[in-house]
C-alpha cells in the first residue's frame, strides 16, 4: 500500500500549486521540500501575472498563459476562502513603457504578432503615446515615448501566494517534509519511492516541481529536463502611498506599497548575488520611466535564478520509461500557478497530458539536439 497517491518534489510555487491542485481533487499528497536555503525562484519572483510578453511565435504558450491569467482571480479567491490569506492578486491591465522609438516600434510589431497568433481568442491591445499614457499613469516620465497596454495583465504577491498554498496543503491534510535533499528516486512504472532523512515515501505518481533541481531529478525517472539558471535582479523600495495603479513589465507597486524594479536577464551560473552594474542599469531605467523614484529609498535588492529551458518555454511531460512520473517546470511560477493548480494537477491524475500541452514536451529537446 503506497503512502500517497502522489509525491510532489519541490515546495516552491510550482510544486505547491500542483500539490494543492491534486489535494483539492481528493488525492493524498506528500510534498518533499528543500530546507531554509534553496535556489527558490518563488522567493525571488517579481510577481507579475503577465500575458503581454508571453508566447511570440508559440501560440500554445500564449493560450496557456492566457488561460492561467483568466483563472487567477478564482484561484486567488479560493485560496483566500481556504486559508484566510490574500494573495494580493489584481488584474488592472498592464503596461510596457518604451524609452526609445525603436523599442516602441519593436513592441508594436510583437503585439501585432501576438494578436495574429491568438487565433479565436480575442486579443486587445493598445499602443499608447504619452498623452494617453499620462491619463492612465500620471507619474510616467518625459523620457517615455509610449507603451503597450493589454487589459489581461495583473500581479500578485508571490510570497503570500506561496504561503497560502502551503497553508491550504496542510489544512487539507497534505504531508510536508522540509529539509529533504533527494539523492535517489526508486522508479518503476506507476511505482515510485523516495527516501529522505531516513524515511521512505511511496506513491504511484511523482511530480517533479523542483525548479533547477528537475534536471537531476528528471534523470532518475527517465525525463530529459535541460533547465539552466538565468539570473534576474530585483530592487524593492520603502512603502509608499498608492502611486502606480497598474503594473508595468519592469516596475510595479505591491499591495504593501513597496515598488519593485526588476526584469534583468543574465547568465551567471548558480551565483544568485546582485551586481552594482545591473542594479545601476535597473535604477537608471526606473528613474527614466518614473522620475519620482529618484528620491525613493531602497530596502532590499536580490538576485534569483529563473528556471529556463533552452527555448524559454515550460516543460510538461510524463515519462515514457516510467509512466506516472511527471515534470512541471517553468520560469513563470506566479503567472502559471492557477493553470498548474487547476489544470495540470488534473492531467496528472488522468495519467495523460492533453494535446494542447504537447508543444511543451521534452521531445523538442531531442529535435534540437538532432538539429
Amino acid at each position: 500500500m503506497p503512502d500517497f497517491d502522489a509525491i510532489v518534489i519541490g515546495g516552491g510555487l510550482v510544486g505547491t500549486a500542483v500539490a494543492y491542485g491534486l489535494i483539492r481533487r481528493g488525492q493524498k499528497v506528500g510534498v518533499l521540500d528543500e530546507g531554509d536555503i534553496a535556489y527558490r525562484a518563488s522567493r525571488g519572483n517579481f510577481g507579475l501575472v503577465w500575458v503581454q510578453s508571453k508566447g511570440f511565435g508559440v501560440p500554445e504558450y500564449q493560450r496557456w498563459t492566457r488561460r492561467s491569467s483568466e483563472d487567477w482571480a478564482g484561484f486567488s479567491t479560493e485560496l483566500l476562502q481556504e486559508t484566510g490569506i490574500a494573495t494580493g492578486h489584481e488584474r488592472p491591465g498592464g503596461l510596457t513603457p518604451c524609452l526609445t522609438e525603436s523599442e516602441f516600434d519593436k513592441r508594436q510589431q510583437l503585439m501585432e504578432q501576438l494578436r495574429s497568433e491568438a487565433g479565436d481568442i480575442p486579443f486587445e491591445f493598445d499602443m499608447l503615446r504619452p498623452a494617453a499614457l499620462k491619463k492612465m499613469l500620471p507619474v510616467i516620465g518625459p523620457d517615455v515615448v509610449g507603451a503597450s497596454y493589454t487589459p489581461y495583465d495583473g500581479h500578485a504577491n508571490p510570497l503570500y501566494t506561496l504561503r497560502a498554498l502551503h497553508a491550504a496543503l496542510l489544512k487539507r491534510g497534505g504531508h510536508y517534509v522540509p529539509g529533504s535533499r533527494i539523492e535517489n528516486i526508486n522508479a518503476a512504472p506507476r511505482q515510485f519511492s523516495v527516501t529522505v532523512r531516513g524515511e521512505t515515501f511511496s506513491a504511484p505518481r511523482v511530480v517533479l516541481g523542483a525548479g533547477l533541481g528537475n534536471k537531476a531529478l528528471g534523470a532518475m525517472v527517465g525525463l530529459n529536463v535541460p533547465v539552466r539558471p538565468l539570473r534576474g535582479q530585483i530592487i524593492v523600495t520603502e512603502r509608499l502611498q498608492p502611486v502606480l495603479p497598474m503594473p508595468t513589465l519592469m516596475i510595479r507597486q505591491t499591495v504593501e506599497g513597496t515598488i519593485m524594479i526588476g526584469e534583468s536577464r543574465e547568465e551567471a551560473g548558480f551565483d544568485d548575488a546582485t551586481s552594482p552594474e545591473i542594479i545601476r542599469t535597473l535604477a537608471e531605467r526606473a528613474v527614466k520611466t518614473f522620475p519620482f523614484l529618484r528620491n525613493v529609498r531602497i530596502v532590499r535588492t536580490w538576485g534569483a535564478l529563473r528556471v529556463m529551458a533552452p527555448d524559454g518555454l515550460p516543460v510538461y511531460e510524463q515519462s515514457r520509461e516510467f509512466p506516472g512520473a511527471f515534470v512541471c517546470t517553468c520560469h513563470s511560477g506566479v503567472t502559471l500557478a492557477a493553470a498548474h493548480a487547476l489544470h495540470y494537477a488534473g492531467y496528472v491524475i488522468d495519467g495523460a497530458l492533453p494535446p494542447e500541452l504537447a508543444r511543451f514536451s521534452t521531445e523538442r529537446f531531442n529535435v534540437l539536439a538532432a538539429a
Partner: protein
Amino acid sequence: MNAACDLAIIGAGPAGMAAATTASELGLATVVLDEQPEPGGQIYRGIERLAATRPRHLEILGPDYAAGLELTRAFRTARIDYFDSAQVWQVEPAEAVNRVFYKRFGSVGILNAKKVLITVGAMERPMPVPGWTLPGVLTCGAGQTVLKANGLGPGGNGGRFVLAGCGPLLLLLAAQLTRAGIKPAAILETTFNRWAALPHLPGFLAAPGYLGKGLGLLRELKAAGVPMHKGVTRLAIKGDTQAREIEFEWGGSLHREPVDEVFLHQGVVPNGNLAWSLNLAHTWDDAQRAYRPTLDAWGRSSVASILVAGDAGGIVGAKGAEAMGRVAAFAAATDLGKIDHEACERQARDARATLDQHRAARPFLDALYRPAQQWIAPPDADTVVCRCEEVRAGEIRRLVTEQHCPGPNQMKSFVRCGMGPCQGRLCGLTVVEMIAECRQVPVSEVGYYRIRPPVKPVTIGDMAAMDVAVRHDAVGL
C-alpha cells in the same frame, strides 16, 4: 569621487581608529569611512566636541570614556584619509581589489581597496518584551548616546524612568545618570544565574581593572540609594500612546512602577549586516548567544581580502577592540607585503597580549549576563518581534509548529519579518532563537537571514548615479 587605497577601514570606533593609526605607521595607504560626523564610534561618541565644549561632563561619563580622547588624538594626527559622514552600503569583495560603495554629503562614491577591514562595532541585542515599541522605551545605548553626544538626560520635569535588563552597559548608564543628578526610579535587573559565571572568575580577575570597575558601579548605585531589584523574571511596559507604567515580576510577585521612560538592555552583539551581506562565513557563539564572522587570530575572514576587528567580530569590549584593530592592521600590512611575517609577529606582540587579556575577561561577563530565554524568545504571543513589519511572536511560533517553517528565510518570505527598513537588524536574532526553540535544535542549525546589499538606505537615484558600467545587454526590452 572614485579613489584607491591599500586598506579601507569601515567604522571609526576604537577598533577602526587604532587600526588606522597602526596601518598608517606601517605605510599602508589607508582610508577610514564612518557614518558619524566625528570619530569615536558609539563608545566614544561625541568625545571631541564634549571635551571642547562641556568638559565637566567628562566627570559624569567617567575615565573609561575620557580614555577615548587619547585614541582620537592619535587618529586625527595619523597619515590617513578620513571620510566622516560616509555611509557604506556595499562592499564587493574581489581577490585583487574590493569595491567599497558609499554615500557622503549626498553623493555616491566608490573606493577601490586592496583590503577591507570591517570595524562597525556592536549593537544592542534586541530585547522584545510587551510594550517595547511604545514611545518612551529606548535602549540603554540610546540613553547613553544622547548623554554623550547631546548632554541630554531623561527624567526631566519630575519624570520617572527605569533601566531594565542586564549587562555592564546598564549599570554604567545608571551610574552616569546618577552622577549627573538624575536618579533612576529603579533598576530591574534580569541576571538569572550568577553561579554559572563563577568558574570563569580567574580569567576575569586577571584582566586589569574589570572587577574594580564593576564593584565600583554597584557601590555607587547603592550609595545613591537607587532601588535595585535583582532577578526580575518578567517585564511588560504599558501605555496608550506612550510608556506609562512598567509591570514586573520579582521575588515571586507582580509589581508596578509608573514611568515616563524605560531603558532596556540585554547585552551587545556584533553589528552584523555588512559582514552578512558579504556572505562571510559565520560561527554561532553560544557563550555570547550571537553569530560572529568566522575569523583567524588576526581578524582574517573567510574571504581573503576582508578582515573584521573589534566587537563586529565578536564582543571584546572597547579596549579589546582597540587591540584587535591593531592586530588586524598588522595582518593587512603583512598580507600586502609591507612587513614580513617575522616583523608582524614581533611588532604585534603587545597588541596581541592586550587582546588576550581582554578576551580572558569575556567568559565571566558572558556567563554572568547570559540572557534568560524569555528575553531572547518572547513567550507572550502578542509581543512584537519584527518592529518594522509588526510581526508578533505568536505568528512566528505558529508558522514553525503548524506550517513546518524550517528557517528564517522561509519565515521572512511567509510573514515579512526582516523585510522592513531595518533589514532584520532588530528581529534577526529573536527569529532564529524562536525557530530553534520551537524546533528544539541548536540555533546554528537554523541559520540566519540572507542579508543583501545595500545595507544602508540609499535611493534609486543614488544607484542610478553609480560610476559603474551599464548593462543594456541584460536590462531592456
